[in-house]
């Protein structure tokens, strides 16, 4: 079943303010954000915030797109390192990479029209968990 992506309110060819992708009080499964339509941005800043940890969960962000059937998932990038502490980290996603800041990882990819964030979780759900919030801001 083809997915129907959602579009963040943005004017033509405009940087956007950050918008929420995932908000979870207790993140204990592999899960993705909604699918988004990116009309005119080439990349984004991805921000992940984790709260006080119970146990030893880990979280690994990834970006995915869809193939021509708008149904088959294609992975574009998986973070080099997992997140395993209470922290706020950000990733810069842009063609050529933009490593000039304090980002955890600079990723040399272009953001296609259809995309979503995916979080791989490891741990035992009843004992390893924390709050997790993810947001993004488009970069033209």
């Amino acid at each position: 079943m083809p997915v129907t992506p959602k579009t963040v309110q943005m004017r033509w060819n405009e940087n956007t303010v950050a918008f929420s992708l995932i908000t979870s009080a207790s993140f204990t499964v592999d899960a993705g954000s909604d699918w988004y339509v990116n009309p005119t941005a080439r990349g984004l800043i991805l921000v992940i915030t984790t709260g006080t940890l119970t146990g030893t969960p880990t979280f690994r962000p990834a970006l995915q797109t869809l193939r021509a059937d708008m149904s088959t998932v294609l992975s574009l990038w998986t973070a080099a390192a997992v997140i395993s502490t209470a922290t706020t980290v950000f990733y810069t996603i842009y063609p050529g990479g933009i490593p000039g800041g304090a980002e955890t990882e600079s990723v040399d990819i272009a953001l296609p029209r259809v995309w979503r964030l995916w979080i791989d979780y490891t741990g035992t759900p009843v004992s390893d968990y924390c709050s997790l919030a993810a947001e993004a801001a488009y970069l033209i």
Partner: protein
Amino acid sequence: MPNLPQNAALRFGENAYPFTILAFEDETQADRTSKVFINPTGHGLYLVVVIGVLTGTPTYRPRLYMRSASGSNLLLWAATAVLSAAGTYRYALYPGGLAGGSPQESVNIMIPREFLFDLDWVGTGSDHADTTVEGIPLL
């Protein structure tokens, strides 16, 4: 001649939806050549090649061409390595290349206005596999 973007609602300078370059074909035993596509404003694309159900030892190599003013096809790029195993392969064709996410190949190239791809088959007799080629446009 099909155009990109293929969605009439798209505005100028907008990322286009993923599209089919060569639709799924059972038992590809010959070179396959796509239609000519028009790229109004994109810089590059992710090329997705899917190889499945190999019989024998066929190999496949994707290649990009520009349609020249005379109507002939000018070879712009041929994949460095042939594909000889089942899998989904992503090539990043973009100015400067896009090495992130470990693509099959990162190619420092731009996609011109009129372009097409072919899939070069090499094999003998019953060497074949199922093949699909798609594109994901990038501004």
